[in-house]
């Protein structure tokens, strides 16, 4: 987006403006299109002619675009308006348009990829081109994904309460799928989760926000300038963003105080314990194991059990870690990598080197593969003497 426009302000207004158009009778799909047009117009016009009231400007331009489109395609649009028209909420009926938009864009009828794309466009105010670049697909493909998603949810009533858990899954996906191109998806996921947390008291929303902040704070230390991965134990902790860590811990503590534990809070608690250690050696692995126990109890997830085995290996020694690993399915992602690590710590570099090489073949991405190949190479070099 161009310089000279307060992008954060502009994008934060998008859900509100869509909500206003909807209450004036525009269907979701048409309202979203009109607001996206207004956004593009704002980026063009605002640098030279900033509006006094950005929200009113966006509503006026979007509404004009909506009417133009409706006139250009009268019969189809008329049906849409009639079908989707809902009475304005009565006095005292507090409807949060933005919150409703989160639920709509994460509707269970959508596939995860569609929900992610629709959320980034309608709630996040990103353009189709930006979303396409971020996910490395052609713009036409992303445009189709978004318009199909809009058709899928076109029959959903706007003011039905949704399930926060589905929204959290979508935001987690946006955060965790990494980042590429000119859009920082992790940063965007944090912005959207923060905005959601301001609108709901749900402790897992806070848990997810804390989890994101605590991981994002380590980002500068996680890769070397050449793109290679730095394991947690080897990270330069002075590069961690202490302000972001403090915020994450604060958000987490408030959530935990409500005493309704969920998986995101438990994961955030693990991240907080890592953040709390000034050196890798100071890490409180005993407490981390306890949080993994909670996580396994809450989710039964094999991935949580695998991570727990690593933590047990640190807390009670590699033998205990290998014992914790023994019962797990060896086809689990990263199982070989974890086994390699524990065998090395257990003083068996031959097995560790073989497992690292095996893990490299199974690695789900290039930086991990390169990292595991280097680990195998390091051990084999030591073994050659």
């Amino acid at each position, binding site marked *: 987006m161009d310089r000279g426009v307060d992008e954060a302000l502009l994008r934060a207004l998008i859900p509100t403006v869509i909500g206003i158009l909807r209450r004036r009778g525009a269907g979701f799909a048409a309202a979203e299109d009109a607001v996206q047009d207004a956004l593009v117009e704002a980026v063009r016009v605002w640098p030279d002619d900033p509006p006094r009231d950005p929200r009113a400007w966006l509503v006026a331009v979007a509404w004009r675009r909506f009417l133009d489109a409706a006139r250009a395609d009268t019969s189809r649009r008329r049906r849409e308006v009639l079908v989707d028209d809902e009475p304005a909420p009565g006095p005292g009926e507090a409807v949060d348009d933005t919150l409703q938009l989160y639920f709509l864009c994460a509707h269970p009828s959508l596939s995860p990829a569609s929900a992610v794309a629709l959320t980034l466009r309608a709630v996040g105010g990103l353009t189709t081109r930006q979303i396409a670049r971020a996910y490395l697909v052609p713009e036409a493909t992303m445009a189709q994904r978004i318009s199909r998603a809009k058709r899928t949810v076109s029959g959903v009533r706007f003011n039905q309460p949704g399930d926060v858990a589905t929204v959290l899954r979508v935001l987690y996906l946006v955060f965790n799928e990494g980042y590429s191109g000119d859009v920082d998806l992790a940063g965007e996921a944090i912005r959207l989760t923060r905005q959601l947390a301001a609108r709901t008291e749900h402790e897992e929303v806070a848990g997810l926000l804390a989890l994101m902040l605590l991981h994002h704070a380590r980002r500068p230390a996680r890769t070397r300038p050449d793109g290679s991965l730095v394991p947690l134990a080897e990270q330069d902790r002075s590069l961690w963003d202490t302000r972001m860590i403090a915020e994450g811990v604060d958000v987490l503590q408030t959530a935990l105080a409500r005493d309704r534990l969920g998986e995101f809070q438990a994961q955030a608690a693990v991240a907080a314990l890592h953040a709390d250690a000034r050196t890798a050696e100071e890490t409180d692995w005993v407490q981390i194991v306890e949080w993994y126990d909670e996580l396994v109890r809450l989710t039964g997830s094999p991935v949580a059990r695998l991570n727990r085995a690593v933590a047990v290996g640190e807390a009670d020694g590699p033998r205990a870690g290998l014992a914790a690993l023994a019962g797990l399915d060896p086809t689990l992602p990263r199982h070989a990598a974890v086994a390699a690590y524990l065998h090395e710590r257990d003083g068996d570099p031959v097995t560790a080197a073989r497992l690292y090489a095996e893990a490299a073949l*199974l690695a789900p991405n290039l930086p991990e593969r390169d990292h595991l190949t280097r680990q195998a*190479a390091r051990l084999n070099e030591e073994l050659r003497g």
Partner: protein
Amino acid sequence: MAKYLLLKHYRGAPAAVNDVPMDRWTPEEVSAHIQYMQDFATRLEGTGEFVDGQALSPEGTFVRYDGEGRPPVTDGPFAETKDLIAGWMVIDVESYERALQLAGELSAAPGAGGKPIHEWLEVRPFLAAPPTITE
């Protein structure tokens, strides 16, 4: 300009001159190799010749249609499969000679002992759209 696929094989190509598995290199040699590949792609971006580059996981599955209303049949991975693609780079260059030249440079990526791997890469021209003027 014409597009070419530079294809790297896990198996199926003739053996490289410097044919040592990567986990038998030193970590520094692994890093030097990765750096060479990154620099190569960056340089081709700079000359306006880079289109795409991807690495593939070695695990693959064969799939085929099994008739109306039936799920596809899957088979493999086959350990004995002769040909296994490791990854590719797509370049858009002025001539076939230029494509060969670049493939040669890519094949010179350093391996064990810091010496060029001399690995065999396959160069395949794209079948492009038909030209407007044909006579």
